[in-house]
């Protein structure tokens, strides 16, 4: 594939810029490639692809478009008999594409008509034109044009029919496809003409003769193709027609010839490939819907292909059955199709999605039919719908959905028992604690059966749900969802009441250690039980009492558990009477929580609830939480758990995109060592004792910017500077400044802990309070740590003499470890760089750049080389040996941290530039 293709496709504009050309030049180049004899067919196809894909970009000028269209047409005319068939066919496709997609469609209409003539000329040469690909593509192009401008070929439908009859090679389906499309539009035209206002000149006589005359003629067409009058307007009307029988041709229209044409298409359907068959049958169905012809002529197709396993054809047949509800099948045929549909729904050879579609079709047909036919068929016929162990979850669901619909009113105990046994089997994975798809399936089926069957089944489902909860409390959310759905959709509270009371009674029997195993789920159940009117409130209260008094939840202080307990207690407050032992128990529990729960938030809330319980009467509380208009919000709040995260976060923080502050770096001063080493051994000892981090103290000055938004006051309070993190540095701590006034400069020191001495940049976010109390946040200029700021002078006595020794020691050490590879933890490396800088200039630059940072720099030597020793805290070094080489300098680099090399290289390059 040519790179041109990729480059241009990814970004046309940057491609033009890169190749220093413009659209005009590129189009000329592309056309030249198409005309060229020495270019490969692949390249030419790619060029045509570019024209198709980027026609709107490349040909946004009418002159350029006309140039391209003219050139492409000439290519067809000149090279049609010699060029590769695929190339010629793609030229036709490209012209069609450009004509139909252009914004200048009205301007290029003459080109379009001329091109249609050319295409017709190609497809007419049935016997002489042996290039079948070219002819088939020409048919496809005409079909595409007809689909875009419906009705354009109306007047030559008969001519197309003649060609369909004459073409016997395998490309006949392309002719048929074109003919079916044009015929369909012609019939639609005839159907809509009487329904439109006087937009068209045709009179009744023309209408009635349209089908008869246009279809069947003497087999010739006029020398020059002429579009029908007002075809633009007509095409818009045709395009809007829906796929139903709302608009039909007038009864007076002679349709005998139309029937012949449709019979011709139907008779040859078996010769088409699947796609063409589907397309042509769709057109035929549309024609029949528009005409008054009987769909019975499609019966043979329906019966033949409804047992076909090809999903496209099979769907088409079912669509046919749905569209023509009457008149296509008698009762016997209906039964055959139904049987086949049932067979498809459970056929082990078919992919599960096809089986699922078959069942959905069954359900669709069952809903469409006035009578429920599935319930009347022989039970033996329904055998494929029986669920089996091999069924995928989706198929099982659809099968049970269908069967429950069929047997919903059945009084046969065996069948109901069968459904129960399915539920019993499906619960097994859940009883083993398996979640996921088996769980989803079972709960869906439980809801389905609960809605479908009678009380006996409902009780059974309640028992299954309770069993699952008892075995695995992890399924509590699903069970609660099921109960909520049942009570919402069926207004049935008994299910939740019965399940909850059964499970809560079981919870009461548990030892505290067992109860605490899955406490979060049990507490959810207690809350649900407290809400339910079907459960006696004392039961959840006793469970909560056991949990609070007998377990260590208060000592552990888990907020989530505390919140769940409070939620349940709060719910009980609504339903328990305010006097009596239950209220005392409730108050005691809240008191215990408020005193002994380790989490302060839970303690506070328990105290508040206790206060409410003690001060607000039960009637008032109930009224507050359940009756008044305000109470619905409050009730929801209580239901959702007060102070948990369902409350919306306050949006009081204002984000400012521009900086309110100016942060400037003050002069950076290097750390001074408190001690100095007398020799290399002493230095090595000192280095080994250094911590793994080194603190850089960066002095800065912060002030309020004059460019701040006007609404920000001239004095801001509680300023907090937050720094981003970096992989080589510990995140700097926040800096807090009580206030900053306009014009005031506040000095701060940013303490940054370096783990590795690499240059870095720290993003800064400022948070402050405006004088109106709003909290605001804004970005600040980032703080940069430059490489040279990390250079330090080693703490040496008698610097020059000691430094020389240290340099030699370190150089030898790094070189040794590098060469011997004996040290597995070695991080050192050696490197060499050549700098385009004279020896003298390099030395001067180094002296100039390095002196402020006090490093060791050996003076110029007589023999022509000098050395530099840089120390980078906490314990790394960079050693440079610089020597002259004509007009350039060679720098040998040694470092005990190889990752520093790229920074050294960059720094040296900066010096030399």
């Amino acid at each position, binding site marked *: *594939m040519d790179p041109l293709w*990729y480059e241009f496709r990814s970004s046309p504009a940057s491609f033009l810029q890169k190749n220093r050309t413009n659209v005009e030049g590129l189009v000329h180049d592309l056309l030249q490639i198409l005309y060229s004899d020495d270019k490969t067919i*692949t390249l030419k*196809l790619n060029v045509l692809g570019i024209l198709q894909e980027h026609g709107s970009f490349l040909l946004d000028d009418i002159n350029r478009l006309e140039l391209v269209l003219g050139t492409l047409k000439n290519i067809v005319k000149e090279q049609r008999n010699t060029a*590769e068939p*695929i190339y010629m*066919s*793609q030229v036709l*496709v490209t012209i069609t594409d450009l004509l139909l997609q252009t914004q200048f469609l009205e301007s290029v209409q003459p080109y379009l008509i001329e091109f249609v003539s050319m295409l017709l000329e190609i497809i007419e040469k049935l*016997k002489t034109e*042996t290039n079948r*690909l070219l002819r*088939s593509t020409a048919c*496809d192009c005409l079909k595409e044009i007809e689909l875009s401008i419906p009705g354009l070929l109306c007047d030559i439908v008969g001519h197309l029919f003649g060609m369909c009859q004459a*073409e*016997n*090679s*395998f*490309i006949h*389906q392309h002719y048929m496809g074109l003919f079916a499309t044009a015929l369909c539009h012609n019939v639609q035209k005839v159907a809509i003409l009487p329904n439109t206002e006087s937009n068209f000149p045709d009179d009744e006589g023309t209408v009635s003769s349209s089908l008869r005359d246009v279809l069947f003629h003497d087999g010739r067409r006029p020398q020059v193709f002429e579009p029908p009058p007002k075809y633009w307007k007509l095409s818009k009307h045709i395009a809007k027609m829906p796929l139903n029988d709302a608009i039909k041709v007038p009864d007076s229209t002679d349709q005998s010839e139309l029937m012949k044409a449709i019979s011709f298409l139907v008779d040859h359907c*078996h010769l*088409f490939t*699947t*796609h*063409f*068959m*589907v397309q042509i049958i769709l057109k035929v169905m549309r024609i029949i819907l528009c005409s008054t012809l009987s769909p019975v002529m499609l019966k043979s197709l329906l019966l*033949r292909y409804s*047992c*076909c*396993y*090809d*999903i496209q054809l099979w*769907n088409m047949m079912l669509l046919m059955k749905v569209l023509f509800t009457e008149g296509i099948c008698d009762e016997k045929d209906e039964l*055959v199709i139904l049987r*086949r549909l049932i*067979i*498809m729904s459970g*056929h*082990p*050879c*078919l992919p599960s999605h096809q089986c699922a579609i078959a069942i959905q079709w069954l359900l669709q047909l069952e809903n469409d039919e006035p009578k429920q036919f599935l319930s009347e068929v022989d039970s033996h016929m329904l055998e494929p719908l029986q669920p*089996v*162990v*091999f069924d995928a979850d989706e198929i099982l669901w659809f099968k049970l959905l269908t069967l429950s619909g069929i047997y919903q009113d059945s009084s046969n105990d065996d069948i109901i*028992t*069968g459904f*129960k*046994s399915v*539920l*019993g089997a499906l*619960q097994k*994975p859940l009883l*083993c604690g398996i979640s*996921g*798809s*088996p769980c989803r399936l079972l709960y869906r089926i439980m809801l389905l059966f609960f809605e479908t069957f009678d009380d006996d089944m409902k009780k*059974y489902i309640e028992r299954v749900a309770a*069993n699952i909860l*008892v075995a695995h409390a992890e399924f509590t959310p699903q069970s609660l969802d099921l109960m909520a759905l049942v009570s919402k959709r069926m207004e049935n509270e008994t299910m939740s009441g019965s399940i909850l009371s059964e499970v809560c009674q079981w919870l009461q029997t548990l030892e505290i250690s067992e109860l605490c195993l899955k406490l979060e789920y049990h507490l959810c159940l207690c809350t649900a039980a407290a809400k339910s009117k079907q459960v006696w409130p004392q039961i959840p209260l006793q469970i909560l009492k056991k949990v609070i008094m007998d377990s260590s939840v208060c000592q552990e202080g888990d907020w989530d558990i505390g919140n769940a307990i409070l939620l349940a207690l709060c719910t009980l407050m609504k339903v328990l009477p305010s006097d009596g032992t239950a209220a005392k128990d409730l108050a005691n529990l809240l008191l215990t929580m408020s005193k002994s729960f380790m989490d302060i938030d839970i303690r506070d809330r328990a105290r508040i609830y206790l206060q409410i319980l003690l001060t607000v009467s039960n009637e008032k509380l109930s009224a507050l939480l359940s009756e008044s208009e305000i109470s619905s919000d409050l009730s929801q709040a209580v239901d959702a758990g007060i102070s948990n995260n369902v409350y919306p976060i306050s949006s009081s923080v204002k984000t400012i995109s521009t900086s309110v502050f100016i942060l400037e770096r003050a002069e950076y001063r290097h750390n001074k060592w408190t001690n100095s080493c007398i020799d290399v051994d002493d230095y090595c000892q000192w280095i080994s004792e250094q911590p793994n981090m080194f603190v850089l103290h960066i002095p800065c000055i912060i002030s309020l910017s004059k460019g701040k938004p006007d609404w920000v006051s001239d004095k801001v309070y509680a300023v907090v500077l937050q720094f981003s993190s970096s992989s080589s540095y510990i995140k700097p701590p926040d800096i807090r400044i009580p206030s900053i006034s306009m014009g005031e400069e506040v000095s701060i020191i940013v303490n940054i802990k370096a783990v590795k001495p690499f240059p870095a940049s720290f993003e800064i976010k400022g948070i402050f309070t405006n004088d109106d109390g709003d909290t605001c946040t804004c970005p600040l200029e980032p703080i940069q740590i430059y490489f040279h700021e990390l250079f330090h002078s080693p703490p040496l006595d008698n610097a020059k003499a000691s430094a020389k020794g240290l340099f030699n020691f370190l150089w030898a050490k790094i070189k040794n470890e590098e060469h011997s590879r004996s040290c597995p933890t070695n991080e050192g490396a050696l490197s060499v760089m050549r700098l385009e800088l004279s020896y003298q200039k390099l030395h001067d630059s180094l002296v100039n750049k390095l002196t402020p940072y006090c490093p060791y720099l050996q003076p110029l030597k007589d023999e022509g080389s000098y050395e530099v020793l840089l120390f980078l805290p906490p314990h790394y070094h960079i050693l440079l040996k610089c020597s002259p080489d004509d007009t350039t300098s060679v720098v040998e680099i040694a470092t005990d941290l190889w990752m520093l090399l790229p920074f050294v290289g960059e720094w040296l390059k900066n010096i030399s530039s």
Partner: protein
Amino acid sequence: MIPSVAAAVSLLEGMMEVLSSAVKLETSSPQLAELYQYLCLAAPFGTPNETNPSNLKFQIQFRKGLAMPKEKIPSWRPAVYKGSSKLNVRIKEEVRAVQYDKEDIEDICQLYGSVLCKAELEGHPDIVLNLTTPPDSSHLDHLTVHSCVQSSDAEPVLADTTNRHTDTPHYSRSVRFSAPLETFTLCHYQQSPALIPIRGFYQMKGDRTIELLVQLKLHETIRNNFEYCEVVIPFFNRGTIEKIDNISPTSVSLCIGPDNKSLVWNIGQKFPVKSLEVSLSVTVTFTEFPSEEEEERDKTVDAKFCVEQNSYCELNFKISDFTLSGCQIDPRSITLFPSIKYKLTLGRELVSSGYRIWNSHGDALGIPFIRNEPVEEIIN
């Protein structure tokens, strides 16, 4: 909507076929140029048109002086076959079964098959063939056919011909079709109820050391000549196999699976001729129970369900020149219109596909139907 989705899928399949010869795709791969050409032809205006790559390849070839056929030829068979005519029809039957050894769950066996056909025939003849089954077996049911099938018997009919070997009457289903050049599936069928070809029992007990017994009995009507027959016994949630002892009979071919978590018992080509029964008894010791992380790795429902005594073994077998349904193609029934000389090759085979036997001492996954199964009593 659905036809469009199916057309898009067939386009993707065509693209895969075009790219199938590429070992590694790079921008310079010739297959990419081929793919582009394919897309130009298969979807010239963006929507899929003709998507069969071999048909499209045939279309590209430009032949001068190509004569127009006298009759319309199928578009799905553009090329004309040149050479000696051959017709190859093969029945591939698959059986899947689940055996529980439980009173409250019925064993299930599903039998289904496909008839695969490759017709390299001169011209475009119509082919008629009969699928026959013996009268004592269930009829072939649930026939779904390829789109090239012109007609097929909706219901089986008593065939005129009789079986050459047994002289017993056969039920047959006639299928008339005109075949494409490539290999295709002529039809799928199903037979129910199906006979369980190998009845099995699997008994396993134990914890870190387990004792297991597998007993298999071949049905007397099944051809006792396997291409292969083996039993795989997987162990979930038990760690790896440390050792296997007490193998009985000692002559069995038993090995530990590559993951050290299963046993593979190779039964060989034949069951004992007299008894048609084989059995295996073995003691398996596991290293240690797997960590929670290891357990998490076993994500399938089966693997999660197979704790404690819940377990199963699986049979893999293949029998050539045999179908469980008795389905065969009567060679005398094959007729070609117009008649031509051709070489006929018929074949049939039975293979297992998910043939599972659950441990009698454990629980099992299954979907019983129309059976009164009480819910497990946990509460009381």
